[in-house]
């Protein structure tokens, strides 16, 4: 039933000018990782895994990239890149039940690389629906506007961790697992990032008084 709904599955059946499915030589390489799986079973596993990337999941990934990169065009490119990498390196996913975390990790790494290499940070546009605050929210608004440059100064690793912690609500151990880092490293980076962001907020409060 779900096959009819996803473009990815239509694509797997073949599109003009594109390879329809893994060729025998490619399959031979990936089957070699799991000799007990038949070619058909392997193909089905991959299809089922990428079926998780429905519109809702893609939007979540795009949002994650936007928050890390603070640039929607960059986030769009990063999400595209993550999709391509995930599909191409499917054989590197050892535990197929961890597809979701694995894709997050790829996306986070793509974002980190982009921050590191582009080294250009643009201020993200606020949603059109963003209402100008009432007077009693003045301090909060100033704090959030101050957060933008403070966040932009964080390292790429710090930004990824802040977003995973405070937007995804992941615990230290979960972030460490997703990023493949020791928990102590995640804790340390989050500590420094929070100190910087907290200083920005406190300073904005001082200015608002």
């Amino acid at each position, binding site marked *: 039933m779900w096959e009819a709904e996803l473009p990815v599955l239509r*694509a797997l059946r073949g599109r003009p000018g*594109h*390879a329809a499915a*893994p060729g025998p*030589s490619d399959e031979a*390489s*990936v089957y070699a*990782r799991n000799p007990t799986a038949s070619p058909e079973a392997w193909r089905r596993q991959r299809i089922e895994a990428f079926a998780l990337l429905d*519109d809702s999941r*893609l*939007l979540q990934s*795009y949002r994650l990239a*936007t928050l890390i990169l603070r640039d*929607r065009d960059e986030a*769009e*490119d990063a*999400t*595209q890149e993550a*999709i*391509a*990498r995930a*599909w*191409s*390196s*499917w*054989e*590197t996913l050892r535990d197929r039940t961890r597809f979701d975390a694995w894709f997050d*990790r*790829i996306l986070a790494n*793509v974002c980190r*690389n982009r921050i590191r290499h582009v*080294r250009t*940070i*643009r201020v993200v546009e*606020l*949603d059109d*629906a963003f209402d100008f605050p009432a007077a009693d929210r003045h*301090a*909060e608004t100033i*704090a*959030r506007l101050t*957060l933008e*440059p*403070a966040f*932009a100064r964080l390292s790429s690793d710090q930004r990824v961790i802040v*977003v995973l912690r*405070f*937007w995804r609500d992941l615990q230290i151990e979960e972030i460490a697992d997703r990023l*493949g880092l020791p928990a*102590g490293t995640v804790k*340390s980076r989050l*500590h420094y990032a*929070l100190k*910087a962001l907290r*200083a*920005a907020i*406190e*300073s904005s*409060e001082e200015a608002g*008084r």
Partner: protein
Amino acid sequence: MTGKPLDPEQAIRDWLAESVPSQLPASLKEALEEATSRPAGRVEPWSGASSHRLRWAGRVAAVAAVLAIAVSGLYLFGHGRTALPGTSPSASPGATGSPDGRPSPEPATSSPWPEPTVVALPGSTWRLASAFPALVAPDSEPYRSPVFALASGGFVAFVPTASGQSSAYQSSDARPMAFRTEGPTRTPVSSWETRVYGSFDGAHWIGQSVLPGNTATVTAVAQSGVGVEIVAVGWTGVSPNTTATAWTSSDGQTWSAVAMPGSNGVEAVGVVHGPAGFLAWANGPTSTLMWASGDGTSWRRLETSGLPAEVGPDCLFSVGDGWAAAISGDKAQVWQSTDGARWTLAWQGPAATSPVEGYYMGPIAESPDGGYVSFGEATQGGGPLEFPSDIQIWTSKDLLHWTRASRVPRPGWVDDFTAFPSGYVAAGQTVSQNGGEPSQYGSLGVWVSEDGESWRPLAGLPSIAMVDVLSVVGDGASVVVTFVDSSGNLQMLAGHESK
């Protein structure tokens, strides 16, 4: 405008929640359709966007530049193996120990050792060394600098490389890494050997041996000069299944390995030598872990107190009969200890003057006047960070107390600094403009300075794009800039003078 103080964490949550996009771009569904129409196993991460094509152009330019240097090379270093600087030639390359200190039965390596080649930069005394084995980094780990300066002069390099097969270096998980290729099968590298090279000048490198223990990662080196001359620390295994390990050698060819006590799941990140012996440290999940040793071969775990629990030291120094630890952050700190166990705060840097103004310490080097200098960072005001932030120069006479000195513009995106006989060297990436837009990637940038304030590009440096600068280290006479391209190819640029 009064009221209860904001909850910072809630403010961050609210700020993040406010700025998420509400709609999925149609291009992502198209990208998914296109990507999944390809067979697996072929990494084509750069297709479909103009910026990606620029990256490929950069890669081609980098290769062309290196080839041009090679073709017009003025000097090709000869073959042969000798001992590390300051030692005598003895055995042929071979692993001679295991992590428990016993001799290792397996052969050192069955794969060939590419001979590093050396070419002189046109019109310069600087030399570019290349053709090392491609650098291996396990999945999710960034490349680490394999090059360390020796206190006795000269350099040692610990190069992790996959052996015994032809390796196709690709990117997976968006990180440079090595795939092991055996016939049609391609799998991520999960094991590697770490080859040891020595050099007198940073340009001419000689293969020495292989570190005992599979999957060895070296992060720091110290030298006693007496008995055991070289102590390297790091870990074996892949995170989170790591064991902090120390390797020792007196000649660079015969190495012994010992696991640090109580170090399962731990990665040793630094080691320093002083009158009290060796002190190594690691960032533990709840505190900084430290080990002490008199000779580098026998270590004892220290129960530390005083240091911040949240973060570990950036670097440790031998000061007098004890130790000092520098910790960076929004306020730079230096902690001091006489025994490596009990630590007290010796100095704390000035606070930021505003939320968008901060002063950070950075790499520390000895200054020509006999003191010390740190090249840190002074952050700019708010807004887009399209240009490098300023260099904040700190000075110190004792390594313990620092003065915030000059603030000067950065010549480019500088990754590391070190001292040079006639001044200082910095390396990173150049900043260039392309039609008014900041370029996606810069070329390798190396800058020299007599005073640390006025920087100029290194003369004769070719355009080498798509690089990550891993370190800039100096032994007091020479400087080595170590960098790697996106395919994992390791190169070193060595110089002996700044003019």
